[in-house]
């Protein structure tokens, strides 16, 4: 009887149930629609520099309104400019390159770490994992800043290398591309390790035992069994690193060279220094368009994962 009453309660959409649906689904939708989705529509409109919207009471944009003709010419001109001026293409390519190198670096360091943690005795796993997450709780900005003191010409790394006698003159590492790579790998390493760890602990150990029983060497078993099966974890971790790094601002700004630009920093400059809101918006649209492909890839994978579990 009790089972039956439960069933019927679940099947019949009572008023209470409908209200719960409305609140649970409706409120998050409303918030994200208003504050996440709608803003993108506005960015798109402003990137096309619509006169009505380009006149908020801010001096930066009043300058725009005073040059009405220029404004109309710039309607598609923002994108034209991005296409024609080499600096934007160079910045975009450089951003993608940094994100690629950073992702590969995180993978090369993160995979063995995730593997070592996942195969550690169960008692120690929690502690090892906590130690990966812990730096994430301290300020990102401060952690990036810590590298300034280390990579400086008279910083700790150079002093250490000089003391070892490996080098005679200090290396210039700070404000170079190398410093950006280091900063990216350092800051995003946990984002690579966590999904990889989650994936590796879910692997069925009997598969490896079967491979060993059939005479497979450990390394071969790893490349033929573990590695292919952990591919979803690799892709998930890579996307969690790659996508935000393409638009990264803090790391290239504090550690990178002023000459080599990344798109996130360029957007910041166009917005804050040049006060060119429409151009910054156009850059945001371009960046979004570039990131759609990896994002869809990640989303697909997550969907498969979710469907596989249920």
């Amino acid at each position, binding site marked *: 009887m009790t089972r039956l009453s439960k069933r019927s*309660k679940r099947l019949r959409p*009572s008023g209470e149930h409908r209200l*719960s649906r409305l609140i*649970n*689904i409706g*409120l*998050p*939708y409303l*918030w*994200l*629609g208003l*504050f*996440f989705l*709608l*803003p993108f529509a*506005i*960015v798109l409109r*402003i990137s096309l520099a619509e006169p009505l*919207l380009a006149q*908020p009471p801010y001096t930066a944009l009043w300058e725009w309104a005073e040059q009405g003709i220029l404004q109309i010419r710039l309607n598609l001109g923002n994108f034209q400019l991005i296409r024609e001026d080499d600096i934007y293409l160079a910045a975009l390519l450089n951003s993608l390159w940094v994100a690629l190198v950073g992702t590969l670096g995180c993978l090369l*360091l993160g995979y*063995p*770490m995730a593997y070592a*943690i996942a195969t550690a005795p169960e008692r120690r796993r929690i502690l*090892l994992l*906590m*130690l990966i997450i812990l*730096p*994430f*709780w*301290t*300020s*990102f*900005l*401060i*952690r990036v*800043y*810590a590298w*300034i*003191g*280390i990579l400086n010409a*008279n*910083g700790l790394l150079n*002093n250490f290398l000089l003391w070892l006698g490996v080098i005679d003159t200090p290396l210039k590492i700070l404000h170079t591309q190398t410093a950006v790579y280091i900063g990216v790998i*350092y800051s995003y*390493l946990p984002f690579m390790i966590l999904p990889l760890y989650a994936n590796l602990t879910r692997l069925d150990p009997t598969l490896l035992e079967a491979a060993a029983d059939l005479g497979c060497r450990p390394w071969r078993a790893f490349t033929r069994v573990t590695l292919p099966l952990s591919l979803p974890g690799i892709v998930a971790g890579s*996307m969690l690193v790659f*996508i*935000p790094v393409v*638009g*990264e*601002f*803090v790391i290239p700004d504090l550690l990178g060279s002023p000459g080599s630009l990344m798109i996130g920093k360029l957007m*910041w400059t166009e917005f804050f220094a040049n006060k060119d*809101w429409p151009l*910054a918006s156009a850059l945001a649209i371009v*960046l*979004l368009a570039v990131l759609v492909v990896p994002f869809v890839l990640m*989303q697909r994978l*997550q969907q498969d994962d979710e469907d596989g579990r249920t």
Partner: protein
Amino acid sequence: MRRRSWPLLSVLAFGYAFLYVPILLLILYSFNESRLVTVWSGFSFKWYGELLHNRQLLDAAWLSVRIAALNATIAVVLGTLAANALVRHGRFRGRTGLELLLTAPLVMPDVIIGLSMLLLFVALQQTIGWPDGRGFSTITIAHITFSMAYVAVVVRSRLARMDSSLEEAAMDLGARPLTVYLRITLPLIAPALLSGWLLAFTLSLDDLVIASFVSGPGATTLPMVIYSSVRMGVSPQINALASLVVALVALAVVIAGVSLRRR
């Protein structure tokens, strides 16, 4: 038990050193009397003293803490609702859309979120006259928008793994769904709510880029102050601040660890 290989363990050790050496160096040099990183001129608390008298920094820290707390509280509510929707309401219409809207903020570059939120606030101010000026409320709203996505991830996995027999028992005994949710479900997922709250709090306290876009004159958060002083180069006061943050986090972790072990 599998054999532990030396190469693997050394990579692990290198990885942890890579993660922790910069933080440990910051703490070490926060006690250095000299302004220079290269010179160790003696142990001193003087940077901590200066930190406590830095009015601008303290004001900014207070503003950041208030924003972070309000943000975390609202983000936990909204994130939990979203997690309920995804775990408890099956295949409703618009489910894929909600999943998309909850995943996108996790990876979306800060510069895009910041710019788009600012343009929204400007457009809203033009059309409906709200928000009148930017600062506390606009930063909080922007932070809630990405924090709730993180909270949803944490709460969702907890809800999905939860043992539903207690809830079913309560239902069988005739409890109304809302009562079951408030009396049974919420206490069971309380640890996830707490870690979601802390995560949202930290994310907000840490954000420089989004806050810079949506802030107005007079509303300077802690990361903005840190950023402007860091741009000038290495500053021992920031080292002292970083050490305090690390100490606080370590304390919280120890407390959490002890209370978990007690259970």
